[in-house]
């Protein structure tokens, strides 16, 4: 049944000239002649004119046609959609944190620097690397920062020009090759073997002294732990390359195994995935990076470090790559992450990965008859399944996903990793109950039955939302990315 919610109007179609949606500050300083003060004044300003309640209802209405983790199960693979504890929101909104300015004197922000130092220290221990910086503001930004460290390292050894290639597995996230390109590297693809591991023979053939580094996701995007990881790191090191670990899948490893012990030189973390800072509809991300000592001289400035009793800010670092974002990274997200880390502590930390992996394997097992796993091995924190068998019924992975919406679930990730045909990538996370997983698996089993008995149900899905499948081709062809009061308006 179609959702009984009226289609929201645009804010620009609401309100009336003269309205205002906030009780705004009124200055008590003397009036001034504005033109004298600032010069020419603009004539028009295309913003709405709505009252406060009218405006608030608009957003409440919009929220009713949006789906978050708090609405229901959100098994979007590779995104770690776990519960975002409410206490984190409370601590991050303490005025002592929220109302601080990044350029206020260091002596007046001791609490903030203490938080940053503690998050760094805990992440160092969890990842097994001696250094962490929190300046990168998202996952892709963290990847890019790691590649910059690698670039600076090679340059410092006089090998900057020579080392121009970054190796990226064919299963990698798109951000990996895009980040490499952003650092001026050319990208070569490393194939995956039939078992789902890095193809060692192919890797051997690719290795020479033009290699700047390898970007490896571990566990891979196939949700498999790379059993040859130590050997792979040694191979890349033997030709002078560096190995970066894409930490998107850290949720499989927290408290169980540490990338720093695997042979990697650096890694990034997505605190918005593994450490529960909210995804916010596509950000803020929060991308710490961790690294070995040989990359430390190149860290972005300022470096935050504990020296004795105090946490200090080091700016004069001649070999640094420089600043990668405006200030200290996503500070209020670090407060949330710290709150989360301290809710687990040393006693409970490993429970995260253990239950994430348990949940994923449970889903994998329950679905294996209707949606076989891409590889016949235990998965880590997510499972990668294929819907290939329904192609003969005219059903694609996307059709199954869209039908899941009608059953009340957010779909998993589709068609990624690219090397698995008709791929469904399901990441339940550790915060879901067995009942939720069972209901989800029951729905998928039913849908796979419908795929054979009544494929039209899947093709026309979803039918329960305020819109059906949208015409994305028309969206590109008749590009409309800004509302205008009339067709010919500027």
């Amino acid at each position, binding site marked *: 049944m179609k959702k009984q919610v009226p289609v929201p109007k645009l804010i620009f179609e609401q309100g009336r000239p003269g309205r205002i949606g906030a009780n705004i500050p009124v200055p008590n300083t003397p009036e001034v002649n504005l033109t004298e003060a600032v010069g*020419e004044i603009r004539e028009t300003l295309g913003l709405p004119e709505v009252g406060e309640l009218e405006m608030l209802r608009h957003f409440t209405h919009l929220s009713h046609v949006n*789906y978050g983790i708090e609405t229901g199960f959100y098994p979007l693979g590779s995104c770690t959609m776990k519960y975002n504890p409410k206490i984190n929101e409370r601590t991050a909104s303490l005025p002592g944190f929220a109302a601080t300015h990044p350029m206020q004197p260091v002596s007046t922000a001791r609490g903030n620097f203490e938080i940053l130092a503690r998050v760094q220290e805990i992440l160092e221990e969890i990842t097994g690397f001696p250094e962490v910086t929190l300046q990168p503001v998202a996952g892709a930004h963290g990847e890019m920062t790691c590649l910059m460290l690698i670039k600076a390292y090679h340059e410092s050894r006089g090998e900057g020009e020579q080392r121009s290639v970054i190796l990226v597995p064919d299963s990698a996230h798109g951000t990996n090759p*895009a980040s490499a390109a952003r650092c001026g590297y050319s990208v070569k693809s490393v194939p995956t073997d039939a078992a789902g591991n890095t193809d060692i023979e192919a890797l051997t053939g690719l290795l020479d002294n033009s290699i700047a580094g390898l970007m490896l996701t571990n566990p891979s995007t196939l949700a498999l732990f790379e059993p040859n990881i130590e050997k792979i790191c040694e191979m890349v090191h033997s030709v002078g390359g560096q190995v970066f670990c894409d930490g998107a899948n850290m949720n499989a490893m927290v408290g169980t195994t540490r990338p720093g012990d695997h042979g990697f030189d650096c890694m990034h973390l997505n605190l918005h995935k593994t450490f529960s800072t909210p995804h916010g*509809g*596509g950000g803020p991300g929060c991308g710490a990076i961790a690294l070995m000592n040989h990359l430390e001289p190149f860290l972005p400035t300022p470096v935050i470090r504990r020296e004795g009793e105090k946490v200090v800010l080091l700016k004069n670092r001649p070999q640094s790559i*420089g600043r990668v974002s405006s200030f200290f990274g996503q500070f*209020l997200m670090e407060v949330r992450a710290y709150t989360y880390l301290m809710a687990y502590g040393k006693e409970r930390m490993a429970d995260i990965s253990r239950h994430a992996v348990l949940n994923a394997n449970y889903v994998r097992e329950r679905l294996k008859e209707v949606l076989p796993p891409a590889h016949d091995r235990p998965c880590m924190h997510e499972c990668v399944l294929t819907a290939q068998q329904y192609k003969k019924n005219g059903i694609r992975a996307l059709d199954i996903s869209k039908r899941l919406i009608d059953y009340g679930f957010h779909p998993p990730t589709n068609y990624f990793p690219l090397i698995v045909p008709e791929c469904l990538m399901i990441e339940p996370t550790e915060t879901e109950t067995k009942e939720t997983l069972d209901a989800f698996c029951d729905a998928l089993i039913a849908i796979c039955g419908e795929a054979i008995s009544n494929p039209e149900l899947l093709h026309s899905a979803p039918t329960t939302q305020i819109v059906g499948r949208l015409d994305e081709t028309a969206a590109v062809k008749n590009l409309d990315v*800004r509302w205008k009061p009339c067709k010919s308006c500027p």
Partner: protein
Amino acid sequence: MAYIPHTEEDRREMLATIGINSIDELFREIPENLRVHGQLNIPSFLSEDKLYSHLAELSRRNSDLVETVCFLGAGIYDRYIPSTVAAVIQRGEFLTAYTPYQPELSQGYLQAIYEFQTMVANLYGMDLANASMYDGATSMAEAAIMAHGVNGRSKIAISRAVHPHYREVLRTYCWSVGLDIVEIDTEGGITSNFTPVDSEAACVIVQYPNFFGVIEDLGKARDAARAAGAMFIVVADPTAMGLLKPPGEFDADIVVGEGQPLGIPMGFGGPLLGLFSCKDEFVRRIPGRIVGRTSDHDGNNGYVMTLRTREQDIRREKATSNICTNEALMGLAATVYMEAMGKNGLRAVAEATVRNTQYAMKKLTEAGGKLRFQQRVFGEFVLEIPKSPASVQEALLKKGILCGLPLGDYYPELKNCLLVAVTEIRTKEQIDHFAAELKEALK
């Protein structure tokens, strides 16, 4: 553990279904020598009551700017934030959603983003805006790289009056991608010497108002860019757009900015919001996400992420940028802010800022300071004082005033100067107090 709901019975049933006896067996592919044995060396867990007190205690080690009156700006501003902003962005349907890959379940967010894009474009007087970038600094660096992509030129010309941190980030990005930077010098606080802008320049970047609060002559900067065939990029403060002629009216090609003043707490500088807008003709080169309006098979209007072939998950190394997760929630905060304030509210905020700034300029010069530059300013100005700014800053902190930013570290020639910001929420009494204490400190 509250966040992990499994009971002993759940675990037993699930393991039985999988056909194993212990969770450890699921990790058998991890070589034994790579596993953590025992506990990590980190602090013990805290229950929620203790956790809150612990964080509250850490927060009290800061001097926050509720207690201390803030005259510090330099790109991050202590502005009025309507209560509705937090109320909206804390709604779980928004807060705990992710990128709207499934548009049928994300119409609320997608529509809000479409409204955001519209309002940012209107604010800057541009054809369109994306949604969104990390912060003002990285947004500017992306704009420079985009200019290089458009005209193939490799020299980025940037005014020395652009925020020093933005220039540092630009330097990092340009080094990594192989672009050169030349700085355009200033005179009397305004960007003036455009001689480095030649036929090799990919773009000219100026800030509006600039780092010193001075309202740049955008016409002059544009003419220099056009004469060299370079792109014209402006970093613009969104609050100032409530009053000033927008960069679009000066024919800017790309306008970027820091969205923090639009309803986002200062938060020690993060999370922030990168604004990015440009002319229609460059839409296929724009980095990051864009939402477009389209329809479903029944003709219902709806919204989707569009022009996706520019993006990293589809184009991989040929993408226009590596940006993926951006600052959506901060974009939503800015959307609520812009809709709450609206046309009338933003104008009023900009006017109040000007009034308070003009009053502070008068009072602080009477108290012994001197205006370093004789230019028109918006919201911020450079005050020269006859004593070390760092010592004055310290003295005034004891009186509950954060008096601004000592500029010597960034501009050696301004070592006797403070950058003072005055927003719409400062009062006559606070400014008078600042002036009185400054007079005292300068004795």
